[in-house]
């Protein structure tokens, strides 16, 4: 059994080793290390005229925007490097990081505190050395292998007629053909594997530095999900409070009044009628409160008629006159509609409560697969995220959907709230 099975197992392995030069792999490896050499030379140049220069220029303030540009180029270049690693058979997922922040400085800070930025930069610096080393090793090996294989074809061009192999020198064409046949194939196979090794070493190093993106993405998702869970928990608590203090309490009072009325019905019909009138009022108020609460949880009109209608209904209830211009070619995913609705609702609450505005405008449109909504007012501005304005909560809601929230409100010059929500297609 074993004796019969052994050659079957060994044979494909040997065949794989022997046939490597006949596959596309050596050519891809060669392309990989050649591009690596070129990329390395330009990368080193970039690092000096890019980030290093920016840091020198930071004192003149031009350095800051330039730094952001450098970081973009670094990411872009690193993505090129990730693609290049695919040639060596080491696929690295591309990075699509975005640095958030309302001001330029915040975005630069967010980019510079991103560990991947630094890892990419390290790779671009290392690439020159690493690229040169693997190019030299790989190309030398390839030349020796191919050189022996094709010895008879180029030996004539040597000045001294005779080729030195080890300690002997051969002159005859037939001897050269014999050497090419005997030494050529094994050396070519060896060369292909050395090439493979040098390309793989470089690509693995690139992977070690440039991957991990997945993990960072997961961390980012966990953070935004935790934000969403927090927002949901706060929301549930609010709903419970509203129920406890509102409808529930009113129903208890209602039941009590009806109970007292029943007991008084025989002895004091007039008092009973008065209690019933109070109970009647309480019942109607409880209905209103429940309706408002249900709308706060999820407005039925949003499900039935979409964002435009729901926002128009919101605007109609807002004490500040609002114009609504929402143009959407189709219904959007429920989560996006809901986030947009509550963002606008919160913005309008702020407009009504804090802004002192006389006019407010709401727009909504699709731009590059993002739903972009904007709420602008002509009020006193000066919005602060922390000051109980609910903006932090909104940010959590928007970022949970991978969106962006921007609030611009210079003192005395109105407020612009802009949310971009990816809505797929």
């Amino acid at each position: 059994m074993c004796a019969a099975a052994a050659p079957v197992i060994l044979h494909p392995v040997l065949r794989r080793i022997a046939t490597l030069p006949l596959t596309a792999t050596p050519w891809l490896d060669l392309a990989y290390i050649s591009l690596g050499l070129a990329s390395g030379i330009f990368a080193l140049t970039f690092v000096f005229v890019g980030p290093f220069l920016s840091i020198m220029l930071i004192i003149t303030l031009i350095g800051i925007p330039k730094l952001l540009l450098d970081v973009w180029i670094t990411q872009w270049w690193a993505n090129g490097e990730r693609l290049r690693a695919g040639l060596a058979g080491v696929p690295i997922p591309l990075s699509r990081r975005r640095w958030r922040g309302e001001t330029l400085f915040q975005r630069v800070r967010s980019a510079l505190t991103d560990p991947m930025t630094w890892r990419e930069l390290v790779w671009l610096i290392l690439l020159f050395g690493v690229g040169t080393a693997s190019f030299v090793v790989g190309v030398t090996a390839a030349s020796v292998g191919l050189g022996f294989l094709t010895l008879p074809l180029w030996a004539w061009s040597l000045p001294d007629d005779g080729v030195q192999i080890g300690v002997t020198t051969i002159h005859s064409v037939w001897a050269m053909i014999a050497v090419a046949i005997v030494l050529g194939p094994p050396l070519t196979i060896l060369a292909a594997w050395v090439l493979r090794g040098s390309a793989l070493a470089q690509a693995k190093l690139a992977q070690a530095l440039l991957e991990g993106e997945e993990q960072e993405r997961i961390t980012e998702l966990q953070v935004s999900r935790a934000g969403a869970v927090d927002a949901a928990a706060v929301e549930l608590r609010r709903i419970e409070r509203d129920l406890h203090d509102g409808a529930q309490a009113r129903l208890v009072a209602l039941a009590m009044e009806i109970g007292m009325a029943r007991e008084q019905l025989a002895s004091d019909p007039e008092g009973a009628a008065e209690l019933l009138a109070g109970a009647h009022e309480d019942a109607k108020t409880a209905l209103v409160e429940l309706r408002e609460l249900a709308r706060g949880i999820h407005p039925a009109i949003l499900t039935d008629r979409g964002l435009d209608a729901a926002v128009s209904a919101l605007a109609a209830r807002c004490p500040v006159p609002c114009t609504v211009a929402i143009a959407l070619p189709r219904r959007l995913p429920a989560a996006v509609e809901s986030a947009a609705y509550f963002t606008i609702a919160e913005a309008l609450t702020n407009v009504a409560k804090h802004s002192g505005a006389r006019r407010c405008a709401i727009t909504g449109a699709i731009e590059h697969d993002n739903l972009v909504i904007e709420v602008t007012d002509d009020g006193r501005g000066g919005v602060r995220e922390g000051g109980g304005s609910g903006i932090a909560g909104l940010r959590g809601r928007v970022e949970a959907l991978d969106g962006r929230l921007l609030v611009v409100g210079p003192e005395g010059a109105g407020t612009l709230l802009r949310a971009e929500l990816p809505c797929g297609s």
Partner: protein
Amino acid sequence: MRIVIAEDLVLLRDGLVRLLTAHGHDVVAAVGDGPALVAAVVEHRPEIAIVDVRLPPSQRDEGLRAALEARQLVPGTPVLVLSQYVEESYAAELLADGAGAVGYLLKDRVADPSDFVDQVIRVAEGGTAIDQEVVRQLLARRRADDPLDQLTPREREVLELMAQGLSNAAIAKRLVVTDGAIEKHVTNIFGKLGLHTSAGGNLRVLAVLAWLRVD
């Protein structure tokens, strides 16, 4: 009877005042938070304090905390705690000092004003009033080989009413049977559950609740 009320929702506070006044009681103070309750109990020495579990500023179990504090400052003050939800652990905390004169009821119970006032009076007179929902929760989470399974349906009913704090006479009235019949049921129940207490009133309630809570 002189009563102090602590309830933060004005609607319910006014309702309680009206209800108790209509039944001929005297609400000497109606307050809206925990510290005010403690102060009112110390000042007025009421015959009973009726307290909402959830009070500002914490909106958690501030009312219960304040009631327990007031009972330490003025020992023996009867306390009836009202709650929107049934939480057996709140009842357990109230009963912990074993002094009796405590009640724990759902707010819903005010819908039957006469019954509610009866329970207020029972607690004020040193008895116990535990909401039937609490007792039901205790009875619901039982083990497989449960001594309770040996009880007849009628005995189970009597046990529930005992746990709520009703006296034999009150149970007899509720179930429309004679006092003697109830006494016989009670003896059987105690025998089957292995409870050896001949004590009446508050101690009996505590024994039954303790038996239900343990194991």
